């Protein structure tokens, strides 16, 4: 199974990097950008065909390492 994990900051957590990107977009002349939040994507290839089992394994990976759940949330998508 291939999965794509997206990790983003929780709502309300200050994202100075996102703010800097937002400022850079404005200085390039992109008007109307009212917010930018930066995140991370992990593409994971995992042996095993049973989607429920692999999904719960990836959830455990997110909880234990890929995301810091104090400030981040994660989303798992199966990719083919």
């Amino acid at each position, binding site marked *: 199974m291939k999965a794509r994990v997206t990790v983003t900051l929780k709502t309300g*957590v*200050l994202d*100075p*990097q996102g703010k*800097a990107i937002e400022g850079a977009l404005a200085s390039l002349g992109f008007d109307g950008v009212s917010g930018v939040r930066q995140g991370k994507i992990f593409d994971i290839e995992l042996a095993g065909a049973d989607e429920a089992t692999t999904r719960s394994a990836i959830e455990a990976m997110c909880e*234990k*390492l*890929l995301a*810091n759940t*104090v*400030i981040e949330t994660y989303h798992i998508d199966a990719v083919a």
Partner: protein
Amino acid sequence: MKTSIIVFPGSNRDRDLGRAFRRTNGDEPAYVWHDESELPAGTDVVALPGGFSYGDYLRCGAIAARSPVMRAVAAHAKRGGFVIGICNGFQILCESGLLPGVLMRNERLKFLCRTVTLKVENAETPFTRGYGAGALLRMPLAHGEGNYQADARTLTKLEKNGQVVFRYVDEAGAASDSANINGAARSIAGIVNDKGNVLGMMPHPENAIEPLQGSSDGAGLFRSLALTLEKVA
């Protein structure tokens, strides 16, 4: 006093830290590699040095926090053993859950390397008993991600329990937005866990132990630990 300094790939203040223990207490710390599964027998203090463990990959301290030796460090902390994490060491303690909260990118995004003034907010911890309450200390810091954040409930609890040990202040000892160099919540520079035996701080006391370094104010921290251990023993 028996100190174990943990060395991760990318640690770079481990020698400074060893020297600080040696110069202040005559202590000869052991260096422990990150893939060890046990601490040297009789370890009183575990010290996690500054640096860029694992190149700050994923998140600062995230990979180091999951290395084999950290299970032994967690067990040491659970037994009431003393743990101190400085700079990257503080990040590792937060990532491993031994301290609450998280260290985020500095508010104004810049890597900061300068000497700051800290106020000792709690002089009754094992790490600060050698200082007077409210003492002002000068010591250097050097980090890109030292902006301490936690949810409102955690911050209230830290304040109420006296777990906020050091705060960034101006030269007169007042906390202000301009003195809060990295944007940390409540100007927090260092905290202890609820049991008071685990300390994390961003500034570098190990680089302020003799006049040649511009300040000797950090020496009190290492002396405090020696004082504490004398009393325990």
